[in-house]
């Protein structure tokens, strides 16, 4: 027994070596492909910053779009994005949180509520361009809002509602049932339980989800392009029924131009957009980390 352990048959030995070799080869391939993702991100950022950095300046932020590259800026696009996002947030957050509260706290298990749940899951998978078609037809034409901030914001609301609902439900689900039971035990109504106890406890989680959903809405191009690109707008909107242009639309328009200067402008616009997204995501992550620490 001991001799066979000391010198295993040579065939077995070579198979083991081969298997070990394949194993490490496979591992290294997988590792390489994972690090490749980081390489791609690095290449993308370097490419954009090297093309656009020289175009980003104070004038770039405060000038209106122009046919002349050196005078062009994205003030109206930036303000348009802010208008759209604030309007979207005002509509989407209350609706999304209320839907989530209904599904988690009020809904009984019946056919209608199951249908609503399945429906929300499916809506999250509908391509954004289909929401663009809906917005263009329903808000711009049927309801006659025109290519306005309101039409764009309503379209984005429909687009991010499923995301907000799903994230809020997760946050509400994470509130321990004991909190609800103690509230009821003290004689609170369901309204009081939900608004004084469940909602405050779920708020950080909801805020994280909402900020991530809004930052997705900022970058959404296709639906906003379909709703708003009909009008050529130089001015920043001053009301929700004004026409608008937004950062992604402006980037798209510049990227389509043949002149190389516009390529630089597009990259400059992308830098501004990415900085905006980065700031919002950092806030979301900060809130998440803070609450995780507080809970543990």
């Amino acid at each position, binding site marked *: 027994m001991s001799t066979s352990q000391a010198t295993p048959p040579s065939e077995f030995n070579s198979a083991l070596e081969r298997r070990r070799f394949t194993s490490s080869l496979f591992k290294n391939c997988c590792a390489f492909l994972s690090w490749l993702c980081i390489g791609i991100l690095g290449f993308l950022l370097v490419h*954009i910053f090297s093309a656009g950095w020289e175009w980003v300046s104070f004038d770039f932020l405060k000038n209106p779009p122009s046919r002349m590259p050196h005078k062009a800026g994205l003030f109206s696009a930036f303000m348009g994005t802010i208008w759209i996002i604030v309007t979207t947030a005002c509509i989407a957050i209350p609706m999304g949180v209320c839907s989530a509260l*209904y599904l988690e706290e009020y809904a009984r298990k019946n056919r209608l509520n199951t249908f609503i749940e399945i429906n929300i899951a499916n809506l999250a998978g509908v391509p954004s361009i289909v929401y663009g078609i809906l917005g263009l037809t329903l808000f711009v034409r049927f309801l006659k809002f025109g290519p306005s901030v309101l039409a764009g914001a309503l379209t984005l609301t429909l687009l991010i509602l*499923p995301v907000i609902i799903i994230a809020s439900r997760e946050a509400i689900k994470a509130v321990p049932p004991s909190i609800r039971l103690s509230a009821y035990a003290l004689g609170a109504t369901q*309204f009081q339980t939900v608004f004084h106890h469940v909602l405050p406890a779920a708020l950080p989680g909801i805020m994280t989800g909402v900020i991530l959903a809004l930052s997705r809405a900022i970058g959404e191009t296709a639906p906003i392009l379909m709703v708003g690109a009909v009008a050529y707008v130089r001015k920043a909107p001053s009301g929700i029924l004004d026409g608008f242009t937004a950062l992604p639309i402006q980037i798209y328009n510049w*990227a389509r131009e043949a002149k190389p200067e516009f390529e630089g402008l597009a990259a400059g616009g992308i830098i501004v*957009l990415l900085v905006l*997204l980065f700031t919002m995501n950092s806030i979301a992550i900060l809130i998440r980390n803070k609450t995780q620490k507080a809970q543990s």
Partner: protein
Amino acid sequence: MAETATFSLGKSKKRSRWIEEATRSGFFLCALASVLTTFGIVFVLIREAIPFFQVVPLTDFLFGTRWNALIEPRSFGVIPLLMGTMIIVIGSGLIAIPIGLASAIYLSEFASDRTRKIVKPVLEILAGIPTVVYGYFALTGITPLLKLINDDISVFNALSASIVVAVMILPMVASLCDDALKAVPRALREGGFALGSTKTEVSLKVVVPAALSGIVASFVLAFSRAIGETMAVTLAAGATPKLTMNPLESIQTMTAYIVQVATGDIEHGSVSYYSLYAVGGMLFLITLGANLLSHRILKKYREQYE
């Protein structure tokens, strides 16, 4: 004293019941809005596609091999647009699926916590970058690189669009596969190791088969994302609907056509305008089918370990 107390209690009870009912119905209406959205999408697509199908027969639309919607002589055969979409989907799938699955296996089976802490956020960042940025990247970053390798490639081509769409869906494939692999219980792996298998053998012959339903479901979801992807293909793949399998040429996808019609100066009410809804309806049906399929795979073939 006691009387007034019961009286006010009864009054506030009545009020609170009213508040209960009002919030309940208000919340219900909000939840119903999402159902209305679905009905809205279906209603709009059907209603506006009717004028189109009154002029163009359904069979011509589904089986025609020439798409020439914007200039005379018009022709509305959707096959070239479908083909354009398929080139992008297949091309991006061929790139994203192996890389995504390999990263997922690496992250869940091999990588140290430190590596995970670097790679996972990078994947999240890649997933969060807006699609128009990827379009710009394809046009100005990838295409010139491809031109260095092969000079015949046109400025707008399906290959560079496929590459960026692959980068876009890769994080989704990787993180969904990672979740599926991590859900496989440790005991299965330990059983494999106890029989003398190497780590790779355990990963490929035990863990991946056990997580197969989740992995396949993630592929189907990625497929649906790639079909619906719009801005990158609009910017990088071109606007020439064409029946080709050559990824070096300029093509047009269904989504890019929709953008072209909606943003161009096409007369509202013309057949070309209504063709937008026929193409949009088709896109909606295909992605809906893919999403339902992925749910079904997850539900039906999930291995239960209790």
